[in-house]
């Protein structure tokens, strides 16, 4: 039984408190543990030694230190911010559209990004180096933004039909951009097709200190605005008309939320490729743990941690090569939904 009083610990049950405590421990331990996994096995003690040395300003030499600092740490940071942003965007979109199946990718973002990536890969296919490494994220970002702006332009200003038009135009734009991307791929060489496929399945392998700042900056700024608007976003959950009577300008808030979520998703897709199911699944997981609480920040944190460990799996499952992250999240996601379906039936 959930204890009732608001003033005492805001009414978390012992089980929930235990889960929260575990989550807190996991948050602290994850960076140290996660970097120790990979092709080269590095002990936790060694990780701590290197990290402490780095933090105290010294330069820990050696191959191990370079692997940790230059390869694995940025990768974990990228994975974290990707999971953080996607989970938050998913939770917010599910709330403002009052649709439990809403997802950052539902509004044409991933297909728009794919189209942008395909254009860059097929046009600059032969060109290597700097141009390709900058061009791919840029192309994907432009494609994603284009798709979202088209959805926004189509969803109209009528409050009664806004959600429906948003979802339907998102689906339509997805198919349209997907078709265009397929068409371009069809006329391009097998090499570009392979690299587009690899990109679209998602990976954090390209993470480096030089590219980290942009996704971190954009995701943190957009997330901060969304978190500060939480009270207003929550009110939409009670229905558009009720939200209106609470002094909220519903259409505008919904468009702003969609725009911010799209910004988060677009910058992440551009840098990590298409990683599905996180934005859909993590909010549901947190909701199962804490029914009726809308713990947005917690959802985002769980998303970030989840993504780090998925990436660890991607690095370690096969000894000779990496698995694409998107495949693992999709497998876990579909199993998770089958599990929920089973639970619903037994109720």
């Amino acid at each position: 039984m959930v204890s009732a009083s608001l003033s005492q610990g805001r009414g978390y049950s012992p089980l929930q408190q235990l889960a929260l405590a575990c989550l807190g421990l996991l948050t602290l331990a994850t960076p140290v543990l996660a970097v120790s996994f990979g092709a080269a096995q590095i002990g936790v003690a060694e990780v701590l030694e290197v990290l402490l040395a780095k933090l105290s300003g010294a330069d820990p030499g050696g191959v191990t230190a370079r692997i940790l600092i230059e390869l694995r740490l940025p990768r974990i940071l990228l994975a974290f911010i990707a999971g953080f942003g996607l989970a938050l965007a998913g939770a917010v979109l599910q709330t403002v559209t009052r649709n439990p199946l809403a997802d950052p990718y539902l509004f044409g973002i991933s297909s728009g990004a794919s189209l942008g990536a395909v254009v860059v890969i097929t046009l600059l296919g032969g060109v290597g180096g700097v141009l390709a490494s900058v061009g791919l994220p840029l192309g994907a970002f432009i494609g994603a933004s284009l798709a979202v702006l088209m959805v926004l332009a189509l969803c109209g200003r009528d409050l009664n039909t806004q959600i429906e038009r948003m979802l339907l135009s998102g689906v339509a734009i997805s198919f349209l951009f997907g078709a265009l991307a397929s068409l371009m791929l069809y006329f391009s060489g097998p090499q570009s097709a392979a690299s587009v496929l690899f990109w679209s399945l998602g990976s954090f392998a390209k993470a480096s200190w030089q590219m980290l700042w942009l996704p971190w900056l954009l995701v943190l700024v957009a997330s901060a605005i969304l978190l500060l608007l939480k009270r207003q976003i929550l009110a939409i959950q009670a229905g558009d008309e009720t939200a209106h009577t609470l002094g909220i300008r519903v259409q505008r808030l919904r468009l702003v939320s969609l725009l911010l979520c799209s910004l988060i998703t677009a910058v992440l897709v551009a840098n990590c490729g298409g990683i599905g199911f996180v934005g859909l699944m993590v909010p549901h997981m947190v909701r199962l743990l804490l029914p009726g609480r809308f713990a947005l920040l917690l959802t985002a944190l769980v998303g970030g941690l989840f993504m780090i460990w998925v990436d660890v799996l991607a690095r370690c499952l096969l000894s000779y090569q990496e698995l694409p992250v998107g495949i693992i999240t999709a497998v876990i996601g579909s199993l998770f939904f089958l599990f929920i379906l089973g639970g619903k039936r037994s109720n």
Partner: protein
Amino acid sequence: MSAPNQQVQTESLQAHGVSEGANLDVAVGDGACARPALSVRELSWRCGERAILSEVKLDLPEGKMLGIIGPNGAGKSSLLRCLYRFLTPSSGEIQLFGQPIASLSARAFAREVAVVLQDTPQHFDMTTAQLVALGLTPHKAAFSMTTKADRLAVSQALETVGLKDRAGQTYASLSGGEKQRALIARAIVQQPKLLILDEPTNHLDIRYQIQILELLKALGVTVVISIHDLNLASALCDQLLLLDQGKAVAQGSPKQVLSEVQIARVFGVCCQVSPHPQHGNPQINYFYGYHNHLQNSGKNDRHSEPQGEQPLEAKEANHGER
């Protein structure tokens, strides 16, 4: 209501082509210095070509409870929606404490007026306390946190409606009456000067219906509700506004509005009105047996039930409109 201090002429039906009976000359307000909390002038709203509300007038003194009654489709919900600015009137003006409501910002308006609606969305996953805390929204700037005082306001509102031990439960797990009370607690947290409720007694058993309305009266704010149960409206509302086809047919105390003639004319049923043994306001006993009538004749004839009581010219005028 025997000696009203203040006679306010509200509703003259000449404009609508209905002859005015003595019962339509309305005396409003038993307080001496009651200023109008809400005043509506010539309010019309049309949906495309169809006039849903035409030239509705009403005045409501502060602290009183107004019940809006009328048949289905009379425009009760539309009138309420105009009052809480979800619909923009085609013409006319609504004033709240002397201020046109159109001049207020969305948030400022929500600090003055709280609304309890009938339906909540399907996927509504919130605890009761969280739902009640939504009432803080108009009082909080976009980026402010929930303070200790806010939590206190929420738990006090829950106590007022008797739901303190339900705070941590999900809203979906509450019973119908508890849900309605939780929504009222949300409105209390909003600290409104005017509280609007769309059929707050729907789907509730009779005990909850009485409980909800008495709770609303005890709050001491100005209240506007739409309500179907005429006996309940008679017992607990200070004033009634009778709507028919978008027009205000009568406004005043239950005694003034709920006459046999009036009910027959607007609702098309025969009834007998007698003073209630406890509160003395009209108590309505309906007569039955409309089935054959419904089958044999068109819609117009539902108004021909109370043969002897209705003045002929009123009947004529009423039929002419339809």
